[in-house]
């Protein structure tokens, strides 16, 4: 089975490729370039096309598939009415699946299941990364806020932290939020350092 993975995110595409490589008898083609997409698809003549929902080339591709109905290997969106769940899961994971006419659903399903898992895994990685970045930014803000308090109110570092914490508890907010407010206020009013 020839599978084309169209994804402008090269890192996600390689995560998907790696997942699909577990399948037997599959040849996988990754397309990350928008230019010349249709020509590449024609050359590859895939049995299955996976494309992420955020890809701006989807309408162009669907147009090509519609026109391709006249060709010997018409391709259409995979919609197995007996298996709404599989399709729903793929849309939830952020991937749409097109298959060549006549390919059995039993052959397609493992491909979709793997793609869905890989998309999900990639989304989790991304979320972890965003969270880690957020945490770093928060810690940075708390440090800045402490320094501002130490300087402007002559506090020791532990006292500055205690002050942030006291304020946070009193207003039932997180320390990071109070720190961000202190930094913002300082930037607005501040000594311009």
């Amino acid at each position, binding site marked *: 089975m020839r599978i084309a993975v169209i994804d402008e995110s090269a890192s996600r595409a390689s995560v998907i490729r790696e997942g699909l490589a577990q399948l037997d008898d599959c040849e996988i083609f990754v397309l990350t370039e928008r230019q010349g997409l249709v020509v590449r698809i024609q050359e590859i003549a895939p049995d299955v096309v996976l494309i992420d929902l955020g890809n*701006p*080339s*989807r*309408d*162009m591709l669907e*147009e090509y598939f519609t026109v391709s109905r006249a060709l010997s290997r018409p391709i259409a*969106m995979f919609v197995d009415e007996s298996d709404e769940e599989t399709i*729903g899961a793929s849309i*939830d994971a952020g991937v749409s699946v097109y298959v060549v006419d006549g390919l059995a659903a039993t052959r397609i399903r493992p491909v979709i299941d793997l793609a869905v898992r890989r998309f999900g895994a990639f989304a989790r990685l991304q979320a972890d990364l965003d969270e880690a970045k957020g945490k770093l930014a928060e810690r940075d803000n708390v440090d800045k806020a402490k320094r501002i308090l130490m300087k402007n109110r002559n506090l020791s570092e532990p006292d500055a932290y205690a002050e942030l914490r006291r304020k946070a508890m009193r207003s039932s907010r997180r320390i990071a939020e109070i720190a961000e407010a202190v930094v913002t206020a300082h930037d607005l009013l501040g000594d311009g350092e």
Partner: protein
Amino acid sequence: MSEHLIIGFLPLVDACLPILAAEHGFAAEEGLELSFVRDVSWATVLDRLLYGHSDAAHMLAPLAIATTLGRLRPAQPLAAPFVLGLNGNAITFSPELAAAVDAPEGRLGDPLAIGQALAVEARRRASAKRKLRFGVVHRYSSHNYMLRYWLAACGVAPDVDVEIATVAPPFVADALENGEIDGTCVGEPWSSVAVERGVGQIVLATAQIWRRGVEKVLAMRESRLDERRDAVEAMIRAMRKAGTHFVDPANWKANAAILAAPRYLDASPELILRAISDRLVLARGSAPIHYPDFMFQHREAANFPWVSQAEWLYTQMVRWDGVPFDPREAVKATRVFRPDVYRSALAGTGDLLPGASSKVEGSLGQTTAVSAQQGTMVLEQNSFFDGRSFDPDDLPGYLAGFSS
């Protein structure tokens, strides 16, 4: 108790009414909380709607009909209780093609004159090297149908004399620049983006082809409409209020700034302002021109889903998909537009409600008073540039008129 609706949209100026309904608190006034899902292809907007990621979506009117008829996906009935706007698209040529057809400077062209010059150029190009290519945003779009209607009426056979391909709006300027296409029919701000980059000249507004041409609708699954009927009616009232705000010149700048935000259009507020004020810059560096009703979002009950509009779109689908006219399909297509829901939402609000739900399209050469549910309402000129009119009582007859 507030109801929550999730709205899918593509970053285009005519997604304005749902966005402004939320931003200005009109939705909240109706007890409605709106959230938005922004996408970059119609295919994804549609899939989210079909698989329940969104409750309703900003959608190409023909795509809502095509989905109901099962043209791209297995058939799923969609309902459109509100037209988000009429027209608002431009036909933009590469500077070379604009020069070749003698597009005038400083004003929009005459559709017939430009079309006839284009017919000559199209034949020259077809015999010389390669056919002229036009980009439209989707196969099932008013852009495609307006462009084809105009070309065919001027003696240019779409798919024969010229090619028409799908190009996503954000890439239209690139495609003009690298010669992938010679012209486009696209919604704002994308023609203006091409103009600013010096790779396109606006030669016509689609309102010149059909003065009151139906454009986007608010579409939803029919079943979801039934389940969320109260919320949908609240949404319709909120969008009518947003429309009043949108067309008031005092609000243009502020609304352009809201729509420009990264979570909505993520585009230049100056370019958005051109569309919403009907003041277009046709070529880079030239003075803006005022073309009234370039976008038509509110007056004359512009949001009323006329059944005759759906029928016109169906005739164009028959015409260009090359499938035979089928009276059962025509009925299904017609039922996508839901004036009954629009009426029920606005009954008692004092808003204008037409007396009929269908009209002969393109028959009004001048301002005409027609009956409303209470009193009369005034409809301005609503003509097709070639002088044809569309009688919804005789679809086969209308279609036969094109087969020459």
